Each structure stands twice: as structure tokens, then as C-alpha cells.
């Protein structure tokens, strides 16, 4: 490998690296505004100037300069310092310096770097440039006078999000960042431009003037709004979660998160169940914990075990599902189900319900077949990953299901299961590419498997995967799903599925663990709802046991890859609400089947002992483990219907109780549905 010297330190670097990257290898920090390692190089802020020998005797922009063998790089000579001071002075000519009223204050690159390279006074008496505010939608607040034209937002939205809607118009002093005719940015990843903005030009509209970054307690946790389990940081002050920001996790989200992950947090303080309730005379009244637990225990004792049903929701942590399973199985209840959508997977080899390619591993695929999933809405970050792979070239994507703008080109093969089962007989370019592919992968969406003919679809998809040698991937939409399936939270011998339980006469007592995605209008059971929000489940409930949301408990979540991750508590549960497992532990005592754990640690110890996969935090088996999966054994015989595949995510912004309680998400959903109408006109 070639070598270069950075301030006298010799470092080896890989060919193709820029001078800036080589300097970082040597541990030298180079100030920058426009350069970002995940975006293309613009080289327009000029903050990263260094001196390079051999070369012209002038400062050079290190981000855009390829490093070369034998180069000598100087990052702290008087010339470099003077140049950077000059650049900073130019940047500040038109910057309003309104840090005291700027939401970026305290976490602003310009502020930080001005501490190192700024003058303590200004040499300019002239008026500053002022720029009109721009509208970019309900999430992005703009104060464009603060903009330093780094174009990171333009590059992100064009390259990563694949929705080229932000641009820089005019030039020179008049250059402005804007969307086309002030339209809202139509990307599910749009708010990442706010993280990228090195100044306060783009800030969070929903959180404007709400906090200062240094007031917040930062808790590193895991996202539950989709099944990817993106790494997040929960920022809280006192009892309130104020914001969620992404953390870097190369394996899942790189450093992006979706707008739902970020802004649904205002739903954590609305519509909350903060006290136990009992329905009396058709109305819910506030009750006490002993009261409600006695009522529930009484009901459970009164009815026979085969008339009790338990349904786990989409946001449950593994511990609570484990406690629920332990409790109800000890009572003899077999009707337990974690699949609200009625998915036809579970109770087989673990690889059959995992995303075996892994999210990062998808970058090694050359042909990808997507069955019955709208990746952009079901997993925006996975879609961004696939787009990243597509930009590298030589990727072919085929879609069976809904036809949507996925931000990359794909072969549309058909809408329904018939296309899937007949795929190997089709003669088109995609099938030809599939036959010649070295690393093909199939992504089967939850929507394809949760139909009445889900089992037959599963068989057909597995058959196609087998005949083309594709890596088997299931994309779930619920954060709890893989954890639930790993635990075996499926109907036991003679047990009913979630869909059967909510039918009229399906059960006498229905225990919902945060299950809000089901139609409960038919059931005539006594409904116990343990959950966080006054949503569908609580609406129908006869007893409400208030529990903790994902930011309020330590919990284990298993993402769609099968990666076990630890979520952490940022704030305490609201009001009298308790952590889910603790509620179940208290209930177990009252029904006379005391659960054998008194702390979360003991519960986890039991969980890890009985289900070893949960003990391997952040481990993912990957495609090698899936190679042994017997695809032929998946699914069952049955008629394939003609109905086209439909994504379970109808409105991206309203997929779970937290998001549905969020005002911001409601605004986004209204805008998104309005936009669709406009397009249809």
C-alpha cells in the first residue's frame, strides 16, 4: 500500500483515498462542512484546506484531493491556519450569528469550528445577506439566512434518499437551497438532512425551540417503528422524551433513520394510558392496580384455559413476551399468538422467518426478487440500502406486488401469486439474469404471507427461492415479530391463531399485550388490554393495564435479520404504568402460578437459558446459517388466489399506536395522502 506523511507521521493508506482521509488515518482532525463520508464530494466549503508537497505552493482542499505515494501533508502550518481562518471569516460574512435563538446552538459545526478558527471580531460593516425562508414540509424548518451552501442536503436527498427534490438555485451570493416551488420533501428519510446540516439552516420543525442539546439526557437504544431495529439515541429531559436521533450502526441503518422513527416520539406523551381502568356500565373508570389485577385474575380463574387467548402486539419486547408465554402456558393456555397479521410463518427452523442475507449483506447481492413488499414504506432504510447497492451498478431488482416508486429501477414482473408460482416458466430478462446470478436473494414481505393463502404463497416463494438458489429473506414489519417467533409465541397444540381468537365466540377472555392492529369489533370476549396507548385495543378493553413504551423499559428486540439488540430505558413509565413483565409477574401471583423471577435480570437469565439465541447480543448468523434451511419444507398445499399482493403498510406514518398518537405523524400522513390524491387527479 502507498505511504504518505502527515505532519511527519508516516501512514499507509489504500489507493483512492483522499488527503483528508489519510490525515484522519494519522489521527489529524480536519475541519469540514461540506465533506461527508457517505455522500459524494462537493469541495465547496473550503474549510478542509491543507498544505501538500509536492504540489503548488497554495492551500489545497483535502477532501477532493487524491492522496499519492510519498506525499507530505501538513495540517497545522501557519499557511494552513491562515487559510482556514480566512475561509471561516468568509463563511461568517453573511452568517447571521443568531446562535442564542438558533436550535442548532450547542451542536453546530459552524459554532464549534468558529471556536477554533474564527476571529473574535468582524471586519465587515456592510449589511448581511438575507434569504427568504423556504417551505420543505412539516418536518424541516428552514432559516435560510444561516445556510452556508455546503449542499449536503442536496446530495443526501439526491443520492441516498433518491428523491431529487432539493436543489441549489441561482448562484454566487444569491445561491439558495430550496425544493421545487417550495414543495414538501417527499421522502421517508427527509429529516436526515437536518442531521447533516452543519449549521442551523435546517432544523427540526416539530421540536423547534423546545430544548437545548446540553439539557438532555442521552440514552442509546433501539428503534421499534419497523422491524430493522435501527440504532437510535433517545434524548429526554425529566419525564419527557424530546427527540430521537440516529446512532451509527453500519450493519443496519448506517447513520440514517426514518422520519417515523424520529418524529413519532411526540406520540409518547399523548393518548397515554397512565392509570389502570375498568369498564363499568359501558364506561371506563379509573381503578387501582390491586383492583384490576384481582379482576383479571378472577376472570382467568373462572374460565377454562382453552377459552383464553393471548395476542402479543407489534412493539413488545422479548422479555414481556417470555413472561406472558410462561404465565399463560402454566395456566394451560394454548391460544397464544404474536402474529396479529396472521402471517403463515412460525414453529419451524428459525432461518425460515429471518432476513438471512442481512441488511448489510444485501450489498453483495446481484439479483433481488421482492415479493409482496413495498420496501420503501415497510423498511425505508432497507430500501435506501438497496438503492445504494443499485447505484454501485450490476444489480437487478424484480418486484412482484405493488408497483411504486422505489427510488431505483426495477423489473415489474406482476401483481399476484400466479406470477410468483409461474416465475421459473417466464422468459424475460429478469428470469435470465436470475438464472445467471451469483448471489441472488429473495425478499418476501409480510404482506405476502399474511393472506388467507399465505401458506401456499410461502410454499410458492420457497419453491422459487430453491429453484434459483436464492438466499431466503423475510421482511417483517413489526419490531416484536422475530422475537415472538423465536420464543415460540404461536398457538400451542389445539390453540387458536390471533385471527380466530378475535372472531365472535373465539375466546371468553382475550389478553392483548399491546395488540392494536386487529379488528376487535366482532369479539364478545372479556378483553384485557395491557399496553401504552389509548388505541384500538384500549378502545375495546374491559380492563386496561397500563404498561411501558419502548423508551420506558429495558428490553430485548430481535430485528428482522435475527439480530438481538438491547433497548434501554430513557424515562420512567407514565403515571402508574408499570413495565410489562412486572405486570405479568404481579398477575401470576394472583392466579397462583407465580413466575420464577423477581427481576429483569432473572427473567433474562431464564430467557437466555431456554432460548440461547437471545443470549447472543448483536450477533447475526447470516446467509451461511440459512444455507442449510430446507426450503422445500416451508409452507403448505393450498390454492393460490388471484388477489394481488398488498403491502400491510397503507400509511407509512400511522403504523403503530405511538405513531397514531403523534401529531407530527398525523400531519405527515395527511400531507402524504393529499399528495397521492393530487397525483391521481
Amino acid at each position, binding site marked *: 500500500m502507498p505511504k504518505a506523511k502527515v505532519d511527519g507521521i508516516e501512514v499507509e493508506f489504500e489507493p483512492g483515498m483522499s488527503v483528508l482521509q489519510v490525515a484522519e488515518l494519522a489521527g489529524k482532525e480536519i475541519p469540514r462542512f461540506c465533506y461527508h463520508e457517505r455522500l459524494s464530494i462537493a469541495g465547496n466549503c473550503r474549510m478542509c484546506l491543507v498544505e501538500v508537497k509536492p504540489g503548488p505552493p497554495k492551500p489545497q482542499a483535502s477532501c477532493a484531493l487524491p492522496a499519492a505515494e510519498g506525499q507530505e501533508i501538513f495540517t497545522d502550518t501557519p499557511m494552513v491556519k491562515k487559510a482556514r481562518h480566512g475561509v471561516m471569516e468568509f463563511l461568517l460574512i453573511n452568517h447571521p450569528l443568531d446562535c442564542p435563538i438558533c436550535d442548532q446552538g450547542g451542536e453546530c459545526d459552524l459554532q464549534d469550528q468558529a471556536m477554533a478558527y474564527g476571529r473574535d471580531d468582524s471586519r465587515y460593516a456592510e449589511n448581511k445577506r438575507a434569504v427568504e425562508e423556504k417551505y420543505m414540509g412539516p418536518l424541516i424548518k428552514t432559516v435560510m439566512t444561516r445556510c452556508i451552501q455546503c449542499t449536503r442536503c442536496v446530495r443526501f436527498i439526491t443520492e441516498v434518499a433518491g428523491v431529487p427534490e432539493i436543489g441549489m438555485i441561482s*448562484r454566487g451570493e*444569491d445561491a439558495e437551497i430550496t425544493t421545487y416551488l417550495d414543495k414538501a420533501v417527499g421522502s421517508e428519510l427527509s429529516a436526515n438532512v437536518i442531521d447533516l446540516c452543519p449549521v442551523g439552516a435546517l432544523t427540526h420543525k416539530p421540536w423547534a425551540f423546545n430544548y437545548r442539546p446540553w439539557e438532555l439526557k442521552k440514552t442509546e437504544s433501539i428503534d421499534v417503528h419497523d422491524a430493522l431495529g435501527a440504532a437510535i439515541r433517545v434524548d429526554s429531559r425529566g419525564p419527557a422524551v424530546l427527540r430521537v436521533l440516529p446512532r451509527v450502526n453500519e450493519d443496519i441503518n448506517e447513520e440514517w433513520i426514518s422520519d417515523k422513527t424520529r418524529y413519532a416520539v411526540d406520540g409518547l406523551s399523548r393518548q397515554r394510558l397512565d392509570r389502570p381502568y375498568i369498564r363499568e356500565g359501558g364506561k371506563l373508570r379509573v381503578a387501582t392496580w390491586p383492583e384490576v389485577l384481582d379482576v383479571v385474575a378472577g376472570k382467568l380463574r373462572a374460565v377454562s384455559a382453552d377459552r383464553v387467548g393471548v395476542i402479543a402486539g407489534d412493539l413488545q419486547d422479548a422479555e414481556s413476551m417470555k413472561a406472558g408465554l410462561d404465565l399463560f402456558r402454566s395456566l394451560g393456555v394454548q391460544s397464544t399468538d404474536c402474529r396479529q397479521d396472521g402471517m403463515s410463518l412460525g414453529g419451524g427452523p428459525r432461518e425460515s422467518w429471518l432476513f438471512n442475507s442481512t441488511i448489510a449483506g444485501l450489498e453483495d447481492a446481484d439479483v433481488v426478487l421482492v415479493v409482496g413488499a413495498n420496501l420503501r414504506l415497510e423498511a425505508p432504510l432497507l430500501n435506501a440500502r438497496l438503492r445504494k447497492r443499485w447505484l454501485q451498478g450490476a444489480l437487478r431488482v424484480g418486484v412482484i406486488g405493488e408497483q411504486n416508486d422505489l427510488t431505483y429501477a426495477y423489473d415489474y414482473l406482476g401483481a399476484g401469486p400466479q406470477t410468483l408460482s409461474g416465475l421459473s416458466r417466464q422468459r424475460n430478462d429478469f428470469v435470465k439474469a436470475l438464472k445467471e446470478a451469483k448471489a441472488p436473494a429473495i425478499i418476501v414481505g409480510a404482506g405476502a404471507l399474511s393472506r388467507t393463502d399465505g401458506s401456499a404463497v410461502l410454499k410458492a416463494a420457497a419453491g422459487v427461492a430453491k429453484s434459483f438458489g436464492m438466499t431466503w429473506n423475510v421482511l417483517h414489519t413489526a419490531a416484536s415479530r422475530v422475537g415472538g417467533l423465536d420464543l415460540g409465541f404461536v398457538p400451542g397444540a389445539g390453540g387458536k391463531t390471533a385471527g380466530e381468537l378475535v372472531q365472535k365466540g373465539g375466546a371468553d377472555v382475550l389478553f392483548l399485550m399491546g395488540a392494536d392492529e386487529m379488528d376487535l369489533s366482532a369479539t364478545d370476549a372479556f378483553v384485557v388490554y395491557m399496553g401504552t396507548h389509548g388505541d384500538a385495543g384500549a378502545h375495546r378493553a374491559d380492563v386496561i393495564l397500563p404498561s411501558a413504551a419502548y423508551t420506558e423499559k429495558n428490553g430485548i428486540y430481535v430485528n428482522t435479520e435475527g439480530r438481538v439488540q438491547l433497548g434501554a430505558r430513557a424515562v420512567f413509565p407514565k403515571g402508574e404504568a408499570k413495565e410489562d413483565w412486572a405486570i405479568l409477574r404481579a398477575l401470576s401471583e394472583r392466579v397462583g402460578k407465580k413466575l420464577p423471577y423477581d427481576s429483569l435480570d432473572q427473567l433474562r437469565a431464564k430467557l437466555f437459558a431456554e432460548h440461547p439465541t437471545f443470549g447472543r447480543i448483536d450477533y447475526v448468523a447470516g446467509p451461511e446459517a440459512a444455507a442449510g434451511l430446507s426450503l422445500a419444507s416451508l409452507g403448505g398445499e393450498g390454492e393460490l388466489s388471484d388477489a394481488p399482493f398488498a403491502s400491510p403498510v397503507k400509511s407509512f406514518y400511522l403504523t403503530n399506536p405511538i405513531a397514531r398518537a403523534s401529531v407530527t405523524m398525523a400531519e405527515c400522513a395527511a400531507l402524504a395522502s393529499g399528495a397521492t390524491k393530487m397525483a391521481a387527479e
Partner: protein
Amino acid sequence: MSIRRLAANQPESFAFRPEFEAQVKTWIANYPPGKQQSAVIPLLWLVQKQEGWVSEPAIRVVAERLGMAQIRVLEVATFYTMFMLEPVGTHALVQVCGTTPCQLRGSEKLIEVCKRRIGPHDHRSADGKFYWQEVECMGACANAPMAAINDYYYEDLTAESFEKLLDQFEAGEKPAPGSAIGRQGAAPEGGPIALTDPSLYDGSAAKPITIPNLPAKEPA
């Protein structure tokens, strides 16, 4: 230069007229498949040739024709000051050079005429016939002061000759472009004083040659 914005009043729609459509096809065909975006400036220029200015519907049409994002076309249209973003005069778009050589030779007088006859710069006159703006050097310094009116240069202007020109445009005439004092090319006033022997430049002393890559003749 001031901040460039799309005009407040925009037409409903835009479509290339057939004679321009042919040129659009020519320009798009000039670039290899997948690189049609390269034709964005020629297409915007054709829009301006047809309409006199670049409207918002036209930007959308160009974006669609070239498979580009609308914002990318807007970026180009706002970047280049040669694209007029609002309707210009029906009779004349007057661009007076205000750079030093012209200024030294009296362009300020021309600007005064514009202000008096047409009104403030970068605006249409009250009758809608004229639109004027001050521009940077147009490269005709030898014949300063000058103004570009519509597609042609009018040089060696004085306030009087300039006013007469504007009269002619107002009357709907098309005055002959070039020097107002009858100067030959960029030669000294009163005629050339060097290279006076025509055989030096008229080709009579040269061997015949064929010039490669001559541009195709513009369609009339």
C-alpha cells in the same frame, strides 16, 4: 444581479411549436442514450427562442423531456442569467453593456435613455414593448458603447442614435445591426489603416482548403 425568481404570473402550459420540436429532437439526439440531460441548456434556450422567456410550465416540460428532476432544470435556469425568467418586451429586449470600456465611451448616457423611455431596469415598459437590463461585457469593446437588442449587437451608439434605434424597434422595424457610425467590423473609425490590400485576406492568394467539422447550417 439581483435574486432571480420565477415570474409571479405563469402561463397554464407550455409546448414546443413544431418548428422548435424538430430542433429539440436534433439536440437530444446529439447526446448518447442516458445522457440526454446534457441537452438541458439548448432546450431551455429553444424555449426562450419560442416564448421570449422561460416559464415554469416550460421547465417542467424540459424536465420531462430529458428525464431529469424538475429542481435540476430550475437550478440551470436560475444559474444562467441568459435565461429570462419573466416575460420580456414584445418588441425588444435591450441589454446595455455597462462594463468599463463602454462606460468610458458613454454607456451611462444609453442607460439614462433606457431609464427615461423604458423605466426601471429588469422590468417591462408600461406598454410592454420594451425590457431593458444592464449586462456585463459582451466582448464588443472596440466599438463601445454598445447594446444587444434581441439577438444582435448595436455598436458605436450615442444617446441620439440609440434613441433612434428604439424608435425603429417601437415601430416594429428591424434595424440593421452593427456599428451606428458605419464602422467596418472592429476597424478604426473612418476605415482600416492596416491590411488594406484585399488580397491579404480575401483568399485570392491562398490555396483552396476544405474546413472540417463545419457546423450545420441553422434552419431558417
